[in-house]
């Protein structure tokens, strides 16, 4: 009698367990119910925020590999959708209404903010991107000279998507590499400024579809107190990157006085160190540039095996660096009075007490601050050739 009771209760319990299994499918969300967003674009026009999502098209990516590139655009595995709203959240809401699948932002590795949108201040966007649960803090942030949605609409022939090409460019260190978290830290820091790489669209090759092209980095967008203020183009942008310690992958021509032609140097390592000092109430900043590079082009008639020549080139190179740094400082201190290179953070770390007392009139101090630029550059390699190549009648001498 008793065993029967146990058996019955066991059977009852097991049937209850089956009920648990049934619930497995109750709110399933399969991959083909999701619209995977690869990149987000933020624009601003007519007093409205425009949110753009670059969405991965899963079906097409499979067929491309099997049929080969019979279509004119070999990639074409992404599409964009745009919606506008008075706030970015409203735009998000409307955007979902234009997409048949549930939007999933967890793979959004790139955020492009147009400079026009940047003029309205980054605060709203940053709060949204750091609050909405799915966005990744490691997403790279760029600005675009034109509209962000146009950058996202591109179908890069080389990469899976234009988001991927932007991400690869950031990893290569073309322009500045700033993640969402770093941008937020940068804006929240005492200097309140930020720099972002600015993206433009290179025109498509003739005969190709208009969208089958690549975004490219040109210039640096400068943000002051969270608002976009100016775009620095070359050569000033080089100085900006140099002072922000973000100069990578750069080849620079160096000219010597009274010498025809130039040397081009590829920099393998550029390090900028800021040393704040407060002496007798005078605030000063020391900028020290350390760099190593190799010569990749020599259009002069001089032989680089000569150590005297080499040191002359190094000197000219350092002077070029100083020139660039001074231009960039002029822009930041005098023209914009924006603390782009985070001097404020340096002073706060240097002497928190004095910094706190002078926090109020920091901008006046900053505008009039003496900046001393020093440096140490070394040419580590002169390439495969020692003597200049390609000079007519060279061998007969």
């Amino acid at each position, binding site marked *: 009698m008793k065993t029967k009771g146990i058996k019955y209760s066991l059977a009852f319990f097991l049937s209850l367990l089956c009920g648990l299994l049934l619930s497995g499918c109750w*709110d399933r*969300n399969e991959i083909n119910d999701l619209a995977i967003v690869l990149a987000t674009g933020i624009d601003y026009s007519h007093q409205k925020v425009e949110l753009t999502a670059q969405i991965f098209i899963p079906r097409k990516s499979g067929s491309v590999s099997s049929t080969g590139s019979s279509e004119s655009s070999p990639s074409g595995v992404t599409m964009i959708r745009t919606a506008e709203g008075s706030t970015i959240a409203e735009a998000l809401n409307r955007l979902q209404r234009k997409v048949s699948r549930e939007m999933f932002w*967890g*793979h959004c590795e790139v955020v492009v903010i147009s400079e026009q949108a940047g003029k309205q201040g980054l605060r709203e966007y940053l709060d949204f991107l*750091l609050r909405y*649960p799915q966005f*990744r*803090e*490691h997403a790279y942030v760029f600005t675009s000279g034109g509209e962000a949605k146009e950058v996202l609409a591109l179908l890069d022939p080389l990469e899976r998507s234009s988001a991927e090409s932007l991400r690869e460019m950031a*990893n290569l260190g073309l322009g500045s590499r700033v*993640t969402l*978290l770093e941008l*937020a*830290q940068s804006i*929240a*820091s005492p200097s309140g400024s930020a720099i972002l790489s600015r993206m433009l669209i290179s025109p498509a090759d003739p005969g190709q579809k208009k969208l089958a092209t690549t975004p490219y980095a040109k210039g640096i967008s400068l943000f002051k107190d969270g608002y976009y203020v100016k775009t620095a183009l070359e050569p000033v942008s080089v100085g900006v990157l140099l002072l922000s310690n973000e100069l990578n992958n750069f080849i620079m021509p160096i000219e010597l006085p009274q010498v025809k032609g130039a040397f081009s140097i590829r920099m393998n390592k550029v390090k900028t160190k800021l040393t704040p000092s407060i002496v007798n109430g005078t605030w000063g900043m020391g900028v020290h540039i350390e760099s190593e590079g190799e010569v990749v082009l020599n259009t002069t008639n001089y032989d680089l095996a000569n150590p005297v020549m080499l040191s002359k080139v190094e000197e000219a190179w350092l002077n070029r660096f100083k020139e660039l740094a001074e231009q960039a400082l002029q822009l930041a201190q005098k023209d914009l009075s924006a603390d782009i290179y985070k001097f404020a953070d340096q002073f*706060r*770390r*240097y*002497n*928190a007490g004095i*910094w*706190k007392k002078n926090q109020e009139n920091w901008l006046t101090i900053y505008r009039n601050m003496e900046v001393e630029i020093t440096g140490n550059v070394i040419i580590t390699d002169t390439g495969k050739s020692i003597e200049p190549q390609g000079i007519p009648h060279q061998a007969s001498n």
Partner: protein
Amino acid sequence: MLPDKGKISASQLAIMIFPTIMATAILSVPSLTMHYAGHDMWLSPIWGSVVGVAAIGISLGLNSLYPGKTIIEVSSQVLGWLPGKLFGFVFFFYWPHLIGLIIRVYGEFISSNALPETPLFVIMGTMTAVCALNVRLGIEVVGRTSQIFVTLLAFLLCLIFVLLIGELNPKELLPFMEKGLLPTLKGAVSPAAWFSEYIVLAFLLPFVHNRKNVTPIMLSSLVVTAIAMVATNLFCLFLLGDLTDSFAYPVMIAARYITIADFLQHIEAIVIAIWIFGIFVKISVFLYIFTITAAQWLGVKSYKPLVFPLSYLCMVFTYWLVSDRPGASSLVSTSANVYTLVILLVLPAALYLIALLKRMLGRKKKRS
């Protein structure tokens, strides 16, 4: 008389304590300390660990005065029947508060980071059920499971740290002592509240079979926990800087931030999965102590019949305590920390003092 016949070793106890402190501390302590101590928040756990020393001292002291007895039994002996029962009642009443809050914090964390669509009740209920089973099987099983899971948890902590090394920025340490020493002491209140949970020793020491090296083992456990807490704070600081206290779960942001070689990313799900082992041990330990307290307070011979009803009570408390996530996070903030400190540190300390006085007076009487 103990309501459980099981025995554990001193090192098992030490291992159990680690997640008992760290599992929730890892979520809340970085931003709570940052809120008061700013940059220097990594110092706060060091000050806070003094409370840990005190809690360990009280537990060991009570245990040496009344060996083999939990604090609940001791209270009746020291204070007399009625005041002793009142003392026990405070704990009897406090544990569901604390356990309810722990389960709630667990539920809110999981629902906001991993399972946003799953009802909170299912998240919390399944965990409570598993923990209740664990507790019902006895202290030996709780000790064994924690031995296995703590290894994983320690591995997880090291993993996040190692994978993030490239992104860390030690410059964030400066300026050191920007606002002086006082803020770091203020910030120490919340780690202190977590360290006061070392008072669980007063309940669990009677279950330890070899008492020889208990003191050094417990103190080294405290050192390890304090180092883990300082390290957590440090790497939140190095990664997030001043923004640490603007995030609900800074360590989670850190885990999400891991991106190595373009493919080792999105590993936050693994991090959560391993963290669940830690919170499992934490809930089990407190649930066990709750049932032991209840059994001894009610004078029941075995704690086992009490496990499921009391677990259910804790589940109910998760809803009685708070109704939303901001509520849950305010319940782990400073004022709540003081509440924890009063019950987990001040009350046992008072009991220990009275016990000491009684012992001294008793000796004098004997002499005279």
